[in-house]
Structures are given as structure tokens and as C-alpha cells.
């Protein structure tokens, strides 16, 4: 009797165990990563939640832990994000429009621009800080250690995010829309401004929010550019000294010597919670935008 004639039994136990073990190992890899996320958030929350209060949000830093607050840092972050936004939206969208609608992809200089953007996305944030220090704070433009310099440095750092998202959003608009517009007698720019860009706004907006979410948490470039770690005033304008939320956290975690009676670390945790809350809001906004407005062509 050939082997084919025998009845097919259940899989061998050893095989079953091996399969199950493998699946469990893979699952636990994922689980471990998520566990760390949970522990991290729990740790920060436990450390810091008790210190969040209106006073905390509206006070200035102080050498006394129980009187210190994050107001200058919070406002500094707001100013920085405003400068960053005003920079990345026009420059990023214009670059994306140029590369998708005007640039002839076979020309070497256009390919250079594309490779360039890919490279910039991989440059460490500290190097952007050096760039800001050398040209914006000092050097050719010499703005000084001010909000404008910090905001522009962050803008340069996250610009590739906006360009890449913008290109994808513009590329998703079908050519038939452009053809229909041109066939009616519209010029290229009229077609872009009135058809292509309005249709790409959701994708571009999502990209901008993600860029700002990245910028809001950046610390190293701001350190190099000269954000102050201990200032007791909120920024007075684009040309004033500034602090920022991540800088404040950094100062309280490692800059300020803590003693049991004057412990700044819980304050750092509280500031982190505020920062994370801002981030979650921004990410939720991006997800909402994506789900609500993204067109299925």
C-alpha cells in the first residue's frame, strides 16, 4: 500500500510547538516595543502629573522648584512654530509645485535638486544647528540668538517633510483634471492654482502638521543655535531671546542640579506631559484631516 493511501493525521506535535513558539516570539517582539511605550508614558505621567497646574503653565522658571513654570518655554515654542510654519508652507509647497509641474525630470539640475532633498532628510539635526549657528545666528545673516534664527533653523530641518508630502499630494491629482482645464483655455499656472493645488490641500496640510510635530520636539538644533535655558521673560518678538519646551525639559533633567528638597525632575516630567499633549493634538489633527478630506480618485 503506497503512502498516499493512508489517512492524513493531525500535524506532529513537535511541528505544532515550533510553529506556535515562533508565532509567540514574533508577537512578543511587537509586544515588547509597545510595552516600552506604555511604561514610558506611565513613568512620565506618574512623575509629572501632580505638578501640572495653572500656576505651572503661567509661571516663569525659577531656582525654586515649587515656583517654577513653563510659560516662557511654552510661548517660545509657539513663536518658533509660527516662524517655522510661515517658512515651510510657501517654500515647501512652491518647491513641490516646481518639481511636479514645471521641472523636466531628465535635466541634471532637476535631478540634483531631488537627490539633494533626499540627502537633507537624512542629515542629523545637530548639523542643522551648526548651519543655523554659522549662517543665521552669526556669519552672513547675523540675526543673533533670536526666535527668528531658531524658527528658520527648524524650518530648514523639516522642509523636506513638507516637500515630500506636497509632491505626493500633487502627484495624486489625476492628469485628466489638468487636461480638462488646459483644454478650456486655462494657462498652466491657472490650472495649478485653481485645480491642482486646491485638490492637494489635504495632503499638503497633513504633511505640514507632521513637519511641525517633528519640529516641536527638536532640542539639539536649538541648543546649538543658542536657545536660552534660563530666561524669565517670554519672547518679545522675532528678535528676542527665547526658550522652548524641549529646552526647558532638558534644563530641568540635566542642567539643573536637583536635590531632594529642590527636585526639578518631576517638573521635567510635567513639561513632557504638556509637550506630549500638544503632539497628540497635532497628530490627531493630521489623522482627522487625512480621513476626512483625502480624495479617492
Amino acid at each position, binding site marked *: 500500500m503506497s503512502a498516499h493511501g493512508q489517512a492524513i493525521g493531525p500535524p506532529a506535535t513537535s511541528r505544532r510547538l515550533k510553529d506556535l513558539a515562533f508565532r509567540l516570539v514574533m508577537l512578543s517582539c511587537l509586544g515588547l516595543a509597545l510595552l516600552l511605550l506604555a511604561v514610558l508614558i506611565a513613568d512620565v505621567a506618574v512623575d509629572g502629573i501632580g505638578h501640572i497646574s495653572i500656576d505651572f503653565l503661567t509661571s516663569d522658571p525659577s531656582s525654586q522648584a515649587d515656583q517654577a513654570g513653563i510659560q516662557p518655554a511654552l510661548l517660545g515654542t509657539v513663536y518658533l512654530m509660527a516662524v517655522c510654519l510661515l517658512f515651510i508652507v510657501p517654500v515647501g509647497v512652491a518647491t513641490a509645485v516646481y518639481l511636479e509641474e514645471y521641472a523636466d525630470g531628465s535635466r541634471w539640475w532637476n535631478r540634483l535638486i531631488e537627490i539633494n532633498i533626499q540627502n537633507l532628510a537624512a542629515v542629523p539635526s545637530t548639523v542643522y544647528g551648526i548651519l543655523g549657528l554659522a549662517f543665521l545666528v552669526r556669519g552672513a545673516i547675523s540675526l543673533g540668538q533670536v526666535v527668528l534664527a531658531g524658527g528658520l533653523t527648524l524650518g530648514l530641518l523639516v522642509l523636506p517633510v513638507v516637500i515630500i508630502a506636497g509632491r505626493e499630494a500633487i502627484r495624486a491629482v489625476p492628469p485628466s483634471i489638468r487636461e*480638462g482645464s488646459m483644454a478650456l483655455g*486655462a494657462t498652466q499656472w491657472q490650472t495649478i492654482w485653481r485645480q491642482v493645488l486646491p485638490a492637494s490641500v489635504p495632503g499638503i496640510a497633513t504633511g505640514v502638521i507632521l513637519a511641525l510635530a517633528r519640529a516641536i520636539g527638536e532640542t539639539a538644533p536649538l541648543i546649538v543655535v543658542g536657545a536660552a535655558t534660563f530666561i524669565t521673560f517670554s519672547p518679545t518678538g522675532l528678535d528676542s531671546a527665547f526658550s522652548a519646551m524641549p529646552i526647558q525639559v532638558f534644563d530641568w533633567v540635566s542642567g539643573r542640579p536637583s536635590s531632594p528638597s529642590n527636585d526639578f525632575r518631576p517638573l521635567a516630567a510635567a513639561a513632557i506631559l504638556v509637550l506630549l499633549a500638544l503632539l497628540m493634538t497635532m497628530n490627531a489633527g493630521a489623522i482627522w484631516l487625512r480621513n476626512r478630506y483625502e480624495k479617492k480618485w
Partner: protein
Amino acid sequence: MATKQVRKEVVIPQRVAPGVQPGGPEPSRQREAIFRLDDVSVSYGGKAAVREIAFDIGRNEITALIGPSGCGKSTLIRCLNRMNDLIPGARVEGSVLYHGQDLYGKDVDAVEVRKRIGMVFQKPNPFPKSIYDNIAFGPRVLGMKGHMDDIVERALTRAALWDEVKDRLKANAFGMSGGQQQRLCIARCLAVEPDVILMDEPCSALDPISTGKIEDLMLELEQDYSIVIVTHNMQQAARVSDKTAFFTVELDAEQKHRTGRVVEFDDTERIFTNPSDERTEAYVTGKVG
């Protein structure tokens, strides 16, 4: 229906419609020529897609371009409103005269060309805007004068769409059926008050009922506009058009690639009942696809 005709010898295309006789008594078929094409060829990246095209498009007539796929009918119709300009590497040679003027002359504004010579595409392509804004787009960008509501209503009425949408002008155009979308595209084209309407297989993506409506519309529009239509559907060409050009595709002399040509151009009735060329006869009687 896929076999293509392949011939080695070169055929001289027949130029049948003499065209312009402005003051003369017209047999009903002698109409003034809006377009005169002479020895027109289009190539992409050096490779000729159509060659030696020569015929006339008559005023207030429907001219159909028929033939198997891949023989350059769409390429040719896109020459008539300079849409081929948008394709890098496309070259148009020969003479395309529009009302006696060289369409490709150095000083001719392509944007103005497209205002006068409108186009409806194979797959309806309404803009992702409201019905109203779809129609209003052309007049707005061209700076046309006039009360926009009236312009929109006039265009939709002429496209036989007004009654169906007059209560929902602000609704998104994507909510309409395929046939309605295509009539919207026709209305959009009419809103800029063109002289000629080019239609590139306008019904191939539509169901038979919508197709019928659009064919009826074409016959109405013919009174005010000159229409050129590319169609795969021979019966459609026979139903609506006054003149027909039959395209075929040939291997060029060195057997390198395929080029489209016009084999025969004549009154539609003649093409379908008594064609002069045996290739035309083979195609219209369904012997080849």
C-alpha cells in the same frame, strides 16, 4: 477585433472634399472648410505616429474619424487644439489651417486656440468642484464678461442637462452618473463659446442610453458648432456624422514601427455604402477589426 492591417506599399491618400466655396451654390454637402489639413504628420520622440494626413473639416458638420485602435485618430484630433503641445517630445509638421490661418504659427496663442476649439475627453473628467463651479471655471479664467448665473444656465441648457441639475447646482459633480458627467463636460466646453468641438471617443465609457442622449445632443449642436469626433463605434459614425475619415495603420518602409494614415475621406454615406478603397470596405463591413 484586434488584427491590424499591414501593408508594405505606400498609398497616396485621396483628398476628396474640395472645401471652400463661399459664394457658390452648395450641394448640401459642400460646406466651408473650418480646418484644412495638408501633409500633416505627428511624431513622438522622433517616431511618427501619423503621417501625410490631408482632409478638411467642414463648418456646422460632424466629421468622424474612424479606424482600428492604434492608428493615430486621437493623436490627430489633439493636433486640432494644440493639446499635443503639452506632451514633451511631440512634433507636428505639415499645414494645419484654421479659418485660413496657420494654427501652429509662431505668433499664435495656444491658450486662445483652446478657447475657440474645445475638447471633450473619452473618460468624463469633471473637476472636483460643484456643478456650477465646473461650468463657471472656463469663463472665469478667461475673463469672460457677463452674468455668471446666466452663462451657466445657458451652457447647461444647450447641453440638455439644465432640467436635471437646476436644483442642485452646488452639488459636487462627482455625484452624477457617467452620462451626466460627460454632458457636464460638454456644457463646460460650451460655456467658453467655442467655434469647434472636438470629441475623443466621448461615449466609449458610457452605457447605451447615455450614448443615445449624447448622440442626439451632437446632432443639435451641429447647427451652431463644427464637431469632430473620434469613434470606435462604426454605427455611431454612420448615425451622426456627415463626413468620415477612415484611418489605418501601416508598417513603415523599413518595417520599424507603425504609422497611422488616412486611407479614405468622403461623405459618410459613401464610406459606408460604397467605399472607394478595399481596406475601407473591409473595415466597415466588419471583415477586419
